[in-house]
Every structure is written in C-alpha cells, then in structure tokens.
C-alpha cells in the first residue's frame, strides 16, 4: 500500500491491567478520555466510535461501540462493534481505518475493555456437542493444553529447554517492572519459574499468562487532519493484517480437536501468514523492524512468534533469547511493555494495548522501557476460530 493508505495515531490511553472487579465500562471510559486528551481533540470531534466486543460482560459488551459512545455522552457519532477473539481490537481499528481512508470520517475512537472471571477461561454453559469449544473442554483439553503441545513440540524438534522458556519470562518481567499499566511488576529468576507449579507439562504457572481486567483506546485520524492539528509527525499505522488461515491449516488450533487434513492440498501455517500480510501491505520486511509486541500466551509461544515474524529462521528462536537479542538494548527487542507475562490477557483490549506500547516506543515516550531509535514496530496476536492480527506502526 502507498503512503496515502496510512492513518495517524493522535492519541493513546489505557486503564491499568489488574483484577479490579469493576464494570468494564469504567475502565474503557478512563482509557477513552486519556486517549482523547492525548490526541488534543474534543470528544465532539470524534465522528466514529469503533469498539472491540467482550463476550463476558452481557449485552453492553456485545455492543461495546455504542456502550462507550453513550458513556462518553451521545453526540451523534456513528458506531461499530467488532468481535474477533484476541484480534477484536485490531478489527475495530481496521474498521476505523476503512472509515477514514474512504473519506467518511476524519477522526475515530477505537476502544477495547474487559472484566474477566477468575481461573480458566470457560466455555458457554449448556450441552453443545456441535460446538468445538464445548467438545474440547468436555474431553479435558484447556487453553494451556494447546500452549503446552506447542511448547513440547519445540523441545522435541528444536531442542529448546525449560530454561529457554523461563528466560522469556525473566526478560518480560524485567521489561514490565516499571510499566505503570502492567498488572505484575516483579522481577523473577530462572529458579522462580522452575519452582512454580506445573500446569501443563512442560509449562509451569509462570510460563502461562493470566486473564486480567484492563482497557486500551486509540484516537486515529486521516493524515490530513493530523497535519491540520500540526501533528504531521504523528506515529502512523502502515498495515493492519487480519487474514484468516489458509486450508489446510496444519497446526492444531484452539478450540479444535483436530487439524485440517492435508491429504488433498498442502498444509499451511496460520501464525506465519498474519505478519507476512502486514509486511506486504506496509512494503517493508522483517529486517526493517525495530521493536515487536507479540502475544505471549505462554513463554514458549513468544519463541514461535520470533520465527513467524521472521526475526530469525525457524527453529532458532531460543538462540535469540539466550543471546539477549530480544531484550531492550538487544538487536530486536520483543515485548518491551512486559507482554502478557506482566499484563495478563484482557481479550478485547490486548491488541490495542500492543499498539499503545508501540506508539510510546515510536514517539520516544516509553521512559525506562524505551527502545533506542525505534522507527518501525510490529504487533502479532492470534486467537480462537481463525482470528489473528498483525499491525505495523512507523514514524
């Protein structure tokens, strides 16, 4: 895509992640107000509100766009709500971009917010043998089961070790230590990780991310509008990839009980397809990336992402973490925010939180977490039912 297909990020806002037990609207409004103030616009300037839905907070969550438009004070803006599991925030952002690039609006607010229950994420109630999510829980296969299968596969094929996985946690804990929006701000050693309870062999409690409450919001605009505000130097969104898998999907994905059969056509890797489309759209390659925010649902999964983002050849991700390449100060820092390891997952907010962090990094306002000379950032995440996204930011 050419330059005129880009949009500007005028403002970012977040509500700190935690287990606050309050209504998700409260977190979201805080994030929206912060983003609007950061953008230097007024709420009445916002012509489009694009919300990421939450499935756990009743009807207001299903219509998140309208919920926040009302909470901020109905002012006639158009609304949209997107649901795409972990990629909901990116799809809401993509809806805003379409509206802006088609000339239908200048300024849009994008928001995702969630209040999460305790413990394992559960399927919806009732007997539903036609629902793969019900089937796998019935058979005793939880989210950590899938993460652990991927992790063990790395150990079996590439020789990754438990210490390699733990090193990801140690790195992310250091990164998030001073992040005011992170839920867990504590440094850990390899021994701390090794001493935590085994959940799904080879993954321990500290290898797996928690679920959190939290909210993130962005104010985005056309480049013209940004220029008129004197913000021609604003961080830009150069690509948003929300591609679906290509049949036959060769890695068993949550919540499925089996992969596609590759008996008639070749197998494909979904995770790798997400950033590949983003690179193509932005007209850049992995060698141009200065910093990445990836979905570390587990420590081992962060290593898979290094390879899917093409930051290293397949099978060599553990060498990157061992060499310190992905720490702040290293060759290609990953998860300077602290990642899900320090945040815990707040599904509709998480993809937007990744964009907020990269905006800080590209503006040079990340404080202790600043990656020097950050010019291009990429996010990556993947969720249930063929959803995922990858967003590229540049300045």
């Amino acid at each position, binding site marked *: 895509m050419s330059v005129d297909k880009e949009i500007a990020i005028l403002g970012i806002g977040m509500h700190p992640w935690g287990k606050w037990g309050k209504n998700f609207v409260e977190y979201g409004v805080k994030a929206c107000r912060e983003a609007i103030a950061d953008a230097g616009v007024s709420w009445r300037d916002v012509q489009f509100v694009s919300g990421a839905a939450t499935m756990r907070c009743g009807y207001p969550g299903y219509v998140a766009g309208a919920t926040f438009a009302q909470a901020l004070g109905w002012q006639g803006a158009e609304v949209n709500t997107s649901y795409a599991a972990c990629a909901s925030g990116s799809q809401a952002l993509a809806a805003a971009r379409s509206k802006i690039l088609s000339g239908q609006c200048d300024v849009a607010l994008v928001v995702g917010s969630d209040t999460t229950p305790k*413990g*394992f994420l*559960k*399927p919806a*109630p009732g*007997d539903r*043998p036609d629902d*793969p999510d*019900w*089937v*796998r*829980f*019935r*058979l*005793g*296969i*939880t989210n950590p*089961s899938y993460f*652990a*299968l*991927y*992790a*063990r*596969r790395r150990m*079996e*094929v590439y020789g990754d070790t438990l210490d390699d996985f733990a090193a990801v946690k140690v790195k992310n804990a250091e990164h998030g230590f001073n992040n005011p929006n992170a839920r867990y701000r504590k440094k850990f050693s390899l021994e701390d990780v090794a001493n935590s*309870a*085994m*959940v*799904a*062999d*080879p*993954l321990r409690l500290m290898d797996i991310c928690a679920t959190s409450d939290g909210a993130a919001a962005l104010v985005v605009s056309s480049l013209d509008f940004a220029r008129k505000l004197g913000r021609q130097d604003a961080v830009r969104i150069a690509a948003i990839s929300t591609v679906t898998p*290509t*049949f*036959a999907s*060769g*890695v*068993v994905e949550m919540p499925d*009980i*089996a*992969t*596609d*059969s*590759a*008996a*008639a*056509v070749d*197998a494909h890797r979904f995770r790798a397809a997400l950033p590949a489309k983003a690179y193509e759209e932005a007209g850049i390659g992995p060698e141009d990336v200065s910093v990445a925010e990836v979905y570390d649902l587990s420590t081992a999964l962060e290593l898979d992402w290094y390879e899917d983002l093409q930051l290293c050849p397949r099978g060599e991700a553990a060498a990157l973490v061992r060499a310190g390449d992905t720490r702040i100060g290293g060759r290609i820092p990953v998860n300077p925010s602290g990642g899900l390891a320090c945040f815990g997952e707040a599904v509709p907010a998480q993809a937007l939180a990744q964009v907020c962090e990269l905006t800080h990094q590209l503006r040079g306002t990340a404080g202790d977490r600043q990656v020097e000379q950050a010019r291009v950032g990429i996010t990556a995440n993947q969720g249930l039912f063929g959803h995922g996204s990858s967003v590229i930011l540049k300045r």
Partner: protein
Amino acid sequence: MAKSQAPVLEGWFAVENGEPHLIGTRCESCGTYYFPKQSLFCRNPACDGETFEEVPLSRRGTVWSFTNAMYQPPEPFVAEDPHVPYTILAVELEREKMIVLGQGVKGLECADLKAGMEVELVLDTLFETEDQETITWKWAPVA
C-alpha cells in the same frame, strides 16, 4: 450390576471386529478427510464437493506432541475428586495427514512419551457416575 456405557460424543467413534476407530468422513471429490465428520460442504477452497463417505480413521499414528493436565479443567469436564492428572496427546495420522488430539490412557505419563512414537487408539472411561460409564477415545503406546 454392570454399569451402562455411553459414548461421550454420539457417532464420533465405533468398534469393528473388536478394534475401535474414530469415525471421519472423506470428500468424494477431492479426498480430504474430516474429523469431526463433515457431511455438507467440503472446506477445501478448491473443491465444491457436497458428497462424503463415512470412513474409519487410521487407528495408529505417531506422536506429534504431548502434555498433561495437572489442574482440574472447568465444566463440562467431569473430574474425579480429587483430580487425577492425565496426559493429552496430539497424534499425526499418516494417511489422513491430520493431527488428532485425545487423552493418553490411564497411567501414561509425559516421561513415557516422545515425538514420533507410535500409538494406537483405544476406548476407555472418561468419567463415571453411580450407574453410568462415559466412554471416550484415548491414545496408548503400541506394545
């Protein structure tokens, strides 16, 4: 009195000549296999097949990866009290070119497993109540 037995999922597996197998379907146009069964539309984007034959899936495969469940999963899983950890295997079927998940047989541990190992499908208890045993497929190392 013997407990009655019921499959955890109706029509997902069967026993033939004393040997259990998963029940899949195969697209009559392109040959793609499906598990769980697909009988309406082929999902291969290059195929518009709408007719399928029901086929037994391979009873044997090789371990792609494995893990265990140290904590009790939420409902609709029915746990023993206290929870007894079990293994979960991802098994590659060569003919079908697909990976199928399932629990490992009782007593199987991660230390017993290795990628590439040959395993076979067996039927075993998933959980039981006072008068009924719920049956599922599990994977067992080939002796």
